[in-house]
């Protein structure tokens, strides 16, 4: 290979990075000083402030699409459903613990929100829940019934199925589904095919196993009916527990430090190795 060719090949290798070096490219928008702050084709100060709600702009920022106002109202209802002032809930207790340690509110809420990045509760189940209902609808279109779909989720014949979006860790039943269903109707939404199937699955689970659809099942069915992708759904609900963490932080921060749920030494159940002497480092090495 000639030296010129070698140089050309090397330049091609770095083209991808060189084009981006020292520059930021945005399809979403930004601030042109003295002109406007652009966001997905809107001027934020002219077109959005005072005209669109916070949740409309949140969806715009996540998806690049400005939704209708009633969807923003519906999303706000979900955020209220998911933010309780109960310091036993894991993410909320992190807020309380941050408050009692006099961490800043910003740190507390960020930490609480981060805790919901969990497959057990919070935001991550939305991913699995959306995958499930989208795949379930595809199966239904292939001719399977809700009963068949539920049965496929059983690890072995006759066992209880585990389906994200149905059943909850601490309680059975979910009062938030009823509340959201009311909001959905008030806002004039029709039940689409994903959510209808979710209710069919709920009925099967209720009859056979005494389990009910939870808020994840409801939200993922509703959002899938509106055409949101898995990633979009997860991103829209990233901070869904935020105000519950706030409540728990505020309450603990207003009490004396380290007074939230204090533990005696004996309140921890030590199950480890009994006391033993520390051996000297081997090979005679000094630490």
């Amino acid at each position, binding site marked *: 290979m000639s030296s010129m060719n070698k140089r050309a090949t090397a330049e091609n290798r770095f083209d991808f*990075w060189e084009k981006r070096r020292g520059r930021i490219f945005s399809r979403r928008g930004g601030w042109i000083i003295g002109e406007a702050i652009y966001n997905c084709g809107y001027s934020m100060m002219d077109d959005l402030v005072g005209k669109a709600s916070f949740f409309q702009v949140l969806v715009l920022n996540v998806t690049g699409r400005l939704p209708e106002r009633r969807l923003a109202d519906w999303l706000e209802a979900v955020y209220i459903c998911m933010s309780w002032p109960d310091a036993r809930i894991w993410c909320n207790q992190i807020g309380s613990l941050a408050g009692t340690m006099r961490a800043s509110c910003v740190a507390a809420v960020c930490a609480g929100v981060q805790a919901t990045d969990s497959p057990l509760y919070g935001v991550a189940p939305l991913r699995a829940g959306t995958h499930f209902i989208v795949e379930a609808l595809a199966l239904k279109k292939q001719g399977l019934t809700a009963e068949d779909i539920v049965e496929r989720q059983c690890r072995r014949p006759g066992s209880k199925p585990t389906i994200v979006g149905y059943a909850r860790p601490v309680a059975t039943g979910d009062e938030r589904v009823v509340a959201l269903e009311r909001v959905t109707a008030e806002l004039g939404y029709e039940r689409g095919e994903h959510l209808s199937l979710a209710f069919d699955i*709920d009925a099967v689970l209720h009859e056979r196993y005494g389990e009910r659809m939870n808020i994840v099942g409801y939200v993922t069915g509703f959002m899938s009916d509106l055409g949101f992708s898995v990633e979009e759904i997860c991103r829209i609900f990233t901070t869904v527990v935020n105000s519950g963490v706030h409540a728990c932080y505020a309450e603990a921060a207003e009490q004396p430090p380290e007074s939230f749920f204090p533990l005696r030494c004996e309140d921890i*159940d030590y199950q*480890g190795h009994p006391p033993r002497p520390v051996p000297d480092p081997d090979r005679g090495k000094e630490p």
Partner: protein
Amino acid sequence: MTDKTKAPKVERRQVKYASRTPTRIWQEEPTADNPYLPARCRCHGYDLFELMAKRRFADVLFLLFNGELPTADQADLLEALMIACINPGPRHPATRAAMNAGVGKTYAVHILPIALSVMGGQHLGGGEVEETMRFLRRSLRRDAAACAQELLAEAKRPAEGDWHIAPGFGSRFGGIDPLPNQMAGLFHQQPASGAALAWGAAFAEALAPHNLGWLLPGVAAAVLCDLGFHPRAGSGLFQIFTAPGLLAHGLELANKPITAMPFLDKEHYVIDEQARNRRK
């Protein structure tokens, strides 16, 4: 809504929760007159003060996660890895997050959590360490070169950007990252090195003709596997190892003016036309 869904009965599950949180790691013995204050702490049975007197930091770190003290060879390898990872460097996205926080006068106490959140990423971060550890554990019984050939045949090189053909292995900025490969070679020669480093070396060798090699998370993962750490610990340990450099760079910018870092002008912050066209 059916009648059944109108009023679901919400009841606490009949699940027994522990009355006390268990731990096998740490024992605290209270003082005689205050049940909240520990007079003595033990880590897996070893008195903290005795550990302070006799052992180095890497020993106790190893003990915390593995339940037993390391051999001197294991501690040497762990400490060498900790030094290798101590600073991802000023161009790493996690370091730049720390620097942004620093120059933005974010309270110093937040700099590390901010940077570590970025360092938790699946690409070159803690997330990739954990994935690599799982990949290595799955792959160790296979022939490394054959595994590489199989992946090369099956996987498709992305049209743009880098290619991580397997977690912990791939290209960086279009080439083989020399330092992780050099580090892996060094660690592989250490007495505590084991099957994961050996397998990774063979795998990287098979990938080299394709301009792919060890990445830093891959090296960290192989060392942690050989030292007996669980993959779940890998992501957090990598965050711990990189934390000093992240914090140092963040703090370095904290007492500098906000002009000490670039704030691009409009020629260099390029807004796509579609974002500027007003929608009515």
